[in-house]
């Protein structure tokens, strides 16, 4: 094959930051929402729990049940996508060399991180909308939506940082196993399905310090019209900052 002279004449330069951010975040969000396993984890399981726990009285909940279930399912949705989904995707992205590929482009490191954060927030927004619509159909009567949005955003950043910490350091298969185990443990014993207050007192004081319990308790308070206490914000911020700082030291490109 021959190429006209001048086809590859150098004309280097970086793209516009906003365009890089837009294309990168859009690509990441599209990949998540197109992946069958991710959709199962981030949407179908939370929706199944929302409908199941609302309609079937397997655990004791205050009435109306949907008002008690929805905040927990929203917290689970954040745990599923920002932590488990993110960690697994990052583990396999590293395996397939995408971080190295992107690190070799003009995309600055801060945009590489920001693009993933924006994509994570977009996915959580999609989850929150779908879950809220189904909950409303089940008779949910929320209040404090602004607090809910703020908590979902902070929860996404916190669990996202934890997801990057896990997915950025270990082998893809190990990440896959650990991310699912942590998801399951936090779902059952991390203050999501069973409220922290209903746990045995010794266990409750420990569980209350977990980000899953903080997010669930915060959302429950907010959506019943209260103001989420300071401890919720501090717990989520501390876990997020701690994981983020650690992740900048442990995350590897491949």
């Amino acid at each position, binding site marked *: 094959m021959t*190429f006209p002279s001048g086809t*590859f004449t150098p004309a*280097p330069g970086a793209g516009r930051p906003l365009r890089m951010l837009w294309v990168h975040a859009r*690509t990441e969000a599209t990949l998540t929402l197109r992946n069958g396993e991710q959709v199962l984890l981030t949407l179908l399981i939370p929706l199944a729990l929302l409908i199941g726990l609302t309609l079937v009285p397997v655990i004791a909940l205050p009435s109306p049940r949907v008002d008690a279930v929805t905040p927990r399912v929203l917290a689970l949705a954040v745990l599923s996508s920002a932590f488990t989904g993110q960690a697994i995707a990052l583990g396999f992205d590293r*395996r*397939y*060399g995408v971080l190295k590929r992107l690190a*070799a482009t003009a*995309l600055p490191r801060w945009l590489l991180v920001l693009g993933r954060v924006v994509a994570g927030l977009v996915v959580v927004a999609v989850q929150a909308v779908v879950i809220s619509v189904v909950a409303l159909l089940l008779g949910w009567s929320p209040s404090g939506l602004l607090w809910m949005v703020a908590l979902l955003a902070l929860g996404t950043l916190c669990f996202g940082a934890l997801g990057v910490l896990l997915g950025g350091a270990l082998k893809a298969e190990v990440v896959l196993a650990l991310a699912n185990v942590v998801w399951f443990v936090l779902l059952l014993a991390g203050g999501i399905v069973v409220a922290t207050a209903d746990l045995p007192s010794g266990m409750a004081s420990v569980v209350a310090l977990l980000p899953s319990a903080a997010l669930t308790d915060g959302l429950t308070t907010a959506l019943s019209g209260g103001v989420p206490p300071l401890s919720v914000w501090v717990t989520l911020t501390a876990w997020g900052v701690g994981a983020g700082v650690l992740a900048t030291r442990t995350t590897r490109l491949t």
Partner: protein
Amino acid sequence: MSESAVEVADVVKRFGPTTAVAGVDLSLPRGQVLALLGPNGAGKTTTVEMCAGFLRPDSGSLRVLGMDPMSAALRPRVGVMPQGGGAYPGVRAAEMLRLVAACARDPLDPPWLLDVLGLSGAARTPYKRLSGGQQQRLSLACALVGRPELVFMDEPTAGLDPQARRLVWDLVSALRADGVSVLLTTHLMDEAEALADRVVIIDGGRVVAEGTPAALTTEGQMLRFRTRPGLDLTLLSAALPESCVVAEPSPGAYLVSGEVDPQVVSAVTAWCAQQGVLAEELRVGRRSLEDVFLELTGRELRS
């Protein structure tokens, strides 16, 4: 503006107890093609990864387009084709190239580039379902799409079929003609000979030879022929002048190196007649790069 696209001086890189690169020097003038040639494990990839800013050398100095290879300002000016490619497992070929193109100010047209690389039919195929050769070509597209001044290619033709390999050669020639500097690694002699202005042969993390392909291959002449394997060479050695050495590097392929004159050719054919064998593909010529390479790096297989 510095003279060289890449300037590597006495660079060392260790991984734990192993020294992957043990004091390599090399220089790539702007607008030229340099081939880093060596057997597996010679330190080619480590050298390129340090030039591309993926690894920091333990000692020595590295300048790429006059800058520190880790410098962020360098990224837009350099295209990199890492060994084995790199993309999201689920991303479609066209999406990946669009993403990399979005990082450049004035990129090549992604659909055109996909077409050139024969990937139009796979534009919507997820990366993990592309064949090895298709992944390799997508990686090349990603390296070129930003119109870089300098391109690093680590084993650009590994796993490609002959047509795709020829296409990569044509692309490298076009890049060179348009003033792009190229540093590529290969273990294929004909590739280095066909593409490179300069060849640097490395082995065990050190440079063992360098020069233009012509300069590396002119020293000494050779006579080659093929015939029945395993013949006793004692009589032939005795019949040849002392300056000539005869060997059978691979079964049935015989090689006489040294001062090859008409008498030597005559002695060889006479010896074949005595042995009752026919010398096939008998030819006299200069050494190939492969001869130089095997001479310098040994003939035993590396793991």
